[in-house]
């Protein structure tokens, strides 16, 4: 089993410059988090706003450098603060953002959206790029007729498919999904989750899946990491974490998740009657 990404004690501090009346201070966004993901597996990172999960995503995606700690991608140590980024490294990690309405350029045709990563990172010809884009459209469940359309002509679910297609254009070894379904309707969410599962099977993709929705995480993840205030308070296989949460925050999170099964509705109604 090859290890695609590994983080050791990753720390990220942000220095917030002082204003007129306040001194500068340091925000510890991520405080020493370690993790690893094997090829073809999914690691889910769960936490609420301010827990540092998106900062960690930025570090894994090589957008932001870590303040301390080591990040290995495909076994190679990466430090973008020193040494910068090669084309090759940039190709290896891709990201899909939460809001498909905001992450596509409204003035760019879908064909150009998909061709752009190739244009920037490879030396392929225009005909090649077009070919590859057409193939990718098929893979994510869209058709050739969509090539010349603009983002506003698509629904939210279709746009998220396009965002996923764009991320896959460079055959990345790791795909970071930052809340990819939380802006979508329930039925569309199911389609996109199915697509992600199919693509993972087909290309042996590795996912880092960031979410605050535990029911989605339970469905898609192999390993789960729960973050709280910059720390990984719980990290283990899906079965371990869901069957036996150890940390009190994880338990709070589970208790807060609304339950849609008949038994809990019965319990609630009985309680209401008694009150």
């Amino acid at each position, binding site marked *: 089993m090859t290890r695609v990404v590994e983080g050791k004690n990753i720390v990220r501090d942000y220095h917030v410059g002082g204003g007129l009346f306040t001194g500068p201070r340091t925000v510890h966004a991520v405080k020493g988090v370690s993790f690893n993901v094997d090829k073809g597996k999914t690691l889910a990172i769960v936490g609420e706003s301010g827990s540092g999960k998106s900062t960690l995503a930025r570090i894994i995606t090589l957008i932001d450098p870590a303040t301390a700690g080591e990040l290995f991608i495909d076994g190679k140590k990466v430090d973008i603060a020193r040494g910068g980024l090669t084309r090759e490294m940039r190709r290896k990690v891709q990201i899909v953002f939460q809001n498909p309405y905001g992450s596509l350029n409204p003035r760019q045709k879908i064909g150009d959206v998909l061709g752009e990563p190739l244009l920037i990172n490879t030396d392929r010809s225009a005909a090649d790029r077009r070919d590859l884009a057409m193939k990718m459209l098929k893979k994510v469940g869209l058709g050739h007729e969509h090539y010349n359309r603009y983002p506003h002509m698509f629904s939210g679910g279709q746009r998220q498919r396009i965002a996923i297609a764009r991320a896959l254009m460079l055959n990345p070894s790791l795909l970071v999904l930052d809340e990819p379904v939380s802006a979508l309707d329930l039925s569309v*969410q199911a389609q996109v989750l*199915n697509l992600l599962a199919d693509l993972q099977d087909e290309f042996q993709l590795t996912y880092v899946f960031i979410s605050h929705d535990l*029911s989605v995480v339970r469905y*898609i993840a192999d390993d789960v990491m729960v973050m709280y205030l910059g720390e990984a308070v719980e990290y283990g296989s899906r079965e371990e974490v869901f069957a036996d949460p150890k940390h009190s925050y994880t338990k709070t999170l589970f208790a*807060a998740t609304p339950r849609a099964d*008949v038994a809990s*509705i019965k319990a609630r109604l009985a309680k209401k009657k008694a009150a």
Partner: protein
Amino acid sequence: MSLLEIKNLTVSFDTAAGPFMAVQGIDLSIEPREVLAIVGESGSGKSVSMLAVMGLLPNTATVKADRMAFDGVDLLKLSPSERRKIIGKDISMIFQEPIASLNPCFTAGFQIEEVLRFHMGMDRAQRRARAIELMKLVGIADPELRLSSFPHQMSGGQCQRIMIAIAIACNPKLLIADEPTTALDVTIQKQILDLLVSLQAKYGMGLIMITHNMGVVAETADRVIVQYKGRKMEEADVLSLFESPKSNYTRALLSALPENAVGDRLPTVSEVMFEPAPSGARA
């Protein structure tokens, strides 16, 4: 008598491509002290029908109904100024984006007191006392201090609490909550839902929860209406809806919940559902 009674409500919007029917013949009624959930995906018309009740739709919308009565008053015949006396007082609404629905230029205290001044005619000291009382009620720490906080100085959860305080300021008979927790974290969501349900029970309000989250429905509702493309698909009490859903669409929605997944794939609504669109639904 029902608190709110709507018969055959139709809302259409004038667009460049002709009228667009957002709501087609919805019947709805809610009793005092009842929690009704309206569930549906985006475009199902669930918000539009409630905005029609509030009279908050833009000029391009045409609202038609056989009957739309609140507490015996026919809402269709009211003049705008008469309607304003009811809206915000006897019927009030909470919206999805708490930070966006508060006015960034005014303090939380001012915005709560504004309602009290307009509808209750209280003097300054009474307003202040009531605002502090309301803030305590919705669980805001240090209410005296928070009166002079601006929306940007508070978290999303706190802003939503302020919105709830404004909504319940005049002891409304009906509270409409339009996706009140969608923008919030799960743990905060739980707190806000608990708060809404406890306030509803305490003051005997009718509560309409508009949501797309089946979990929220299961945790709060007495009765549920499922909407799809402007039509009512099903109406049932909460237990029978989850135990034995009658319409295909509800069944499809429930099976698309990740927690109900059997095996590796999630059934999607279009797979489970009628293809083509259900009889009567908008194409």
